[in-house]
């Protein structure tokens, strides 16, 4: 269905002095009809470029030089512009909201068909079919902006599906979604592949969510692609979900990629772990109280977003705020930093009301890394940004830069902050916030769009901050990060606190939020591969003498 024949692609040169490195290097591969191919790779390895080359956005829309041949069902993308491939390839961009053209769900579903000139009776029928197929029938009259993230993603998929494409290309369809909404989207995709035989090519960082659905994996590294079955590729891949790491640790062969397969091989491992308890980082009991929230209510206009929230956060704690999209996580973070004045209740950081504090002093008490780290940037280069940060924080010159060099030594001074990769932007924003030495550090969805190595690095940095007496509060959907990092989990639902307790008890309590290792080794309460490894080593040491 999709054929790449010695494809090399280079973006147009920005200035004549430096030659551009090709983004795609001599890629030759074949994706068969009806296959679900998963594209895996580190941030900046060229995944989005590869996906866009399938429907001709690269090079027709992006510019640049493409050598070799990309053909979809016999149509060469050199001869067909993206709009002429619209009946064959459906492309769902990373952020569905930026791709919506109309206002209402039903109109959006019809848009592609209108452009293709499909006759009105067929359009009417296909819209109804697609509404049913993706479970959108109740939402047909809803404005697109009022939908939740998972619903928007399903509408985006439906809106290209109505044109009956044979290939569906998706760029990180679940990265912004809570576990439940991600399940919805993936279930819909699974159904398309199995019932309609659609060929799907999908890029995704969160392998723990998708790898079990894939027929093949395209492993992308520095512009080259290695193609194979999931278990063969995963055997040596540095980018792998916890189930693979656990399988490697336990020496399972063949390597299981799904929870179901892993659970069937896990009997011996479970018995060898019996009687041991996971080693947990314990927060000392008597650390100073940093943030105190009492009976907090926050509302926008008529709508209540938070109701009756009470939290005490102590130094050294790493607290994860979880809950579905729109459950009030971001609002709680904004209330903690004083961007929302509570309608009822109090927020105190070190006994001070953050909403009343001048910004200049506030940054020494509490800092927030926003969902879009680039919102914090204003300078034209990294060096300048760091200098601004020093003067804002009133700390000695060069301290932000030193911090950055420690966390991400590869970042160069002269780079424009917006040209950094997502992970680098996050780390720069974190350095700017930490430079003012706030005891309370807030992060909003820090791992959105990060690959496993960057995520591991972030986890190390945050753990270090926790150990030096910071209190870290992060809103996140990333179950595996929470299992690895958090000491406490607060689950929000319907604007109230649903659960508040240690990580182990809260996340293993619900199947939706349980990490992979916990699912495989249940009823034992292991959360991460690291804990299992440590326990096995201890046992080994105990047995040798």
């Amino acid at each position, binding site marked *: 269905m999709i054929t790449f024949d010695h494809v090399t692609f280079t973006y147009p040169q920005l200035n004549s002095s430096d030659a551009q490195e090709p983004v795609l290097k001599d890629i030759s591969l074949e994706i068969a009809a009806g296959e679900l191919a998963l594209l895996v790779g580190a941030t900046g390895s060229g995944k989005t470029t590869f996906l866009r080359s399938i429907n001709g956005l690269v090079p027709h829309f992006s510019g640049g030089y493409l050598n070799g041949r990309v053909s979809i069902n016999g149509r060469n993308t050199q001869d067909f512009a993206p709009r002429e491939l619209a009946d064959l390839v459906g492309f769902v961009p990373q952020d569905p909201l930026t791709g919506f053209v109309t206002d209402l769900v039903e109109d959006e579903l019809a848009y592609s068909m209108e452009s293709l000139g499909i006759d009105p009776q067929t359009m009417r029928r296909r819209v109804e079919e697609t509404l049913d197929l993706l479970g959108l029938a*109740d939402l047909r009259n809803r404005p697109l902006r009022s939908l939740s993230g998972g619903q928007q993603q399903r509408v985006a998929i439906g809106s290209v599906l109505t044109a009956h494409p044979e290939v569906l290309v998706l760029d990180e369809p679940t990265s912004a979604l809570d576990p439940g909404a991600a399940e919805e989207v993936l279930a819909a995709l699974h159904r398309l592949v199995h019932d309609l035989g659609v060929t799907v090519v999908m890029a995704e960082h969160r392998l723990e969510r998708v790898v079990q659905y894939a027929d093949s994996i395209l492993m992308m590294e520095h512009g080259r692609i290695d193609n194979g079955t999931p278990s063969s590729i995963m055997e040596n891949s540095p980018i792998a979900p916890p189930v693979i790491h656990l399988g490697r640790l336990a020496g399972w062969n063949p390597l299981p990629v799904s929870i179901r397969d892993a659970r069937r091989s896990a009997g011996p491992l479970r018995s060898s772990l019996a009687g041991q308890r996971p080693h947990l980082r314990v927060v000392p009991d008597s650390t100073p109280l940093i943030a105190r929230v009492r009976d907090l209510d926050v509302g926008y206009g008529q709508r209540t977003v938070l109701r009756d929230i009470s939290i005490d956060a102590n130094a050294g704690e790493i607290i994860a705020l979880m809950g579905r999209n729109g459950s009030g996580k971001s609002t709680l973070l904004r209330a903690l930093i004083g961007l929302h004045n509570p309608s009822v209740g109090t927020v105190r950081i070190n006994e001070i009301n953050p909403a009343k504090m001048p910004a200049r002093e506030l940054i020494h008490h509490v800092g927030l890394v926003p969902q879009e780290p680039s919102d914090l940037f204003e300078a034209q280069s990294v060096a300048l940004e760091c200098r601004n940060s020093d003067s804002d924080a009133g700390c000695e010159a060069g301290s932000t830069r030193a911090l950055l060099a420690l966390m991400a030594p590869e970042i160069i001074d002269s780079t424009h902050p917006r040209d950094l990769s997502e992970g680098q932007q996050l780390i720069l924003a974190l350095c700017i916030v930490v430079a003012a030495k706030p005891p309370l550090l807030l992060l909003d969805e820090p791992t959105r769009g990060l690959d496993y190595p960057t995520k591991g690095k972030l986890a190390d940095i945050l753990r270090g901050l926790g150990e030096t007496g910071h209190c870290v509060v992060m809103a996140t959907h990333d179950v595996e990060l929470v299992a690895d990092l958090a000491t406490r989990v607060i689950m929000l639902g319907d604007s109230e606190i649903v659960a508040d307790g240690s990580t182990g008890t809260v996340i293993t309590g619900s199947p939706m939020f349980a990490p992979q290792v916990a699912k495989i080794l249940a009823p034992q309460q292991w959360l991460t591969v690291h804990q299992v490894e440590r326990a096995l080593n201890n046992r080994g040491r105990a047995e040798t003498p």
Partner: protein
Amino acid sequence: MSIFQRTRWLHPVAWWIWALSLAAAATRVTNPLLLGLLITAAAIVVARRKPDAPWGKSFEFFLVLGLFIIVIRVVFQVVFGAATGSQLLISLPGISLPSWMSGLRIGGPIMLESLLGAFYDGLRLATIAIVIGAANSLASPSRLLKAIPSALYELGVSVVVALSFIPQLISDAVRIRDMRRLRGRRNTGLRAYATLAIPVLAGALDRSINLAASMDSRGYGRVNNQSSRSRRLVVGLLLSSIVLITVGLFGLFTSDAHPLIGLPSLSIGVGIAVFAMWHSGHNRTRTVYRPDAWTLPEFLVSAAGVLTLGIYLWADIRAETDLSFWSQLHPALNQWPSLPLWGLVAFAISLTPAFTSPPPPSTLGSINDSQKVGAGT
């Protein structure tokens, strides 16, 4: 259930005809009672028929805009306007300007008449804005797009996309302004806004590139079997017809224009437009999903607007010879304005869409669908 009660979207063109007619009527008068009736009619129709979708809320914004227009107009009169009339309200300290700037005046005595005149004038502008706002909240701009002939479709898309970016820009600006506080800056005051330009524009640019890529990959602008020459011909014809229609309307609504500018150029413009649309509709490939039908309610709504405008134009023509009509349209500034009977009739007619148009479908649905509780604890 009759066709007046069945919930559906009214054809957006009907709403716009109704609203633009009311706006055109407003340009003919300065009588605040008549203007008030036009605003009231628009507000009643909006209150009864606005959809619960986001664009339905825009009417309130236009009401505020109207108030703002009035205030600005009056303030300008107080500060710069010439003092005419006889009833002195208050005397502000004035600045005497050199003789070569004798047309200008700053401060000085404020007369009741000149203040009232400014208020009437501001109210007229505000009425136009509010009535247009009514159309905006009753029919979303992108629904109007559906009714645009295929030759002008691409032009229409760029206008609608540009319109939809404005609310997005505002929310971006608010978000980034908040972020300034996180860097330890003040987030109020002029300086805080001045540093927003680059991040906000960068965001808008990113979004428009994404939207363009998405539209391209969904088949927007597919080449159809129309030759590019005939396409260019149609676009050219339509553009020239728009120019002619605009000039024609201008001639029609400015009382001192040459008679040849008005009706003749309007009718020639409309003729060319009809021909161009017929020509382009001949071999188009774009189809429209569930096009809005033009049925009795659409006819009644647009007729209500056109009839209202007709009554105002009739009064306007009579005013040229009959002084009593003139004083009804433009009341003297030293006496209480009168409300003529024909104004009430026009009001009753302009109000009928509140009852003759079908109620819009609800866009809220059931909020709780598919929002499954993730937290099982």
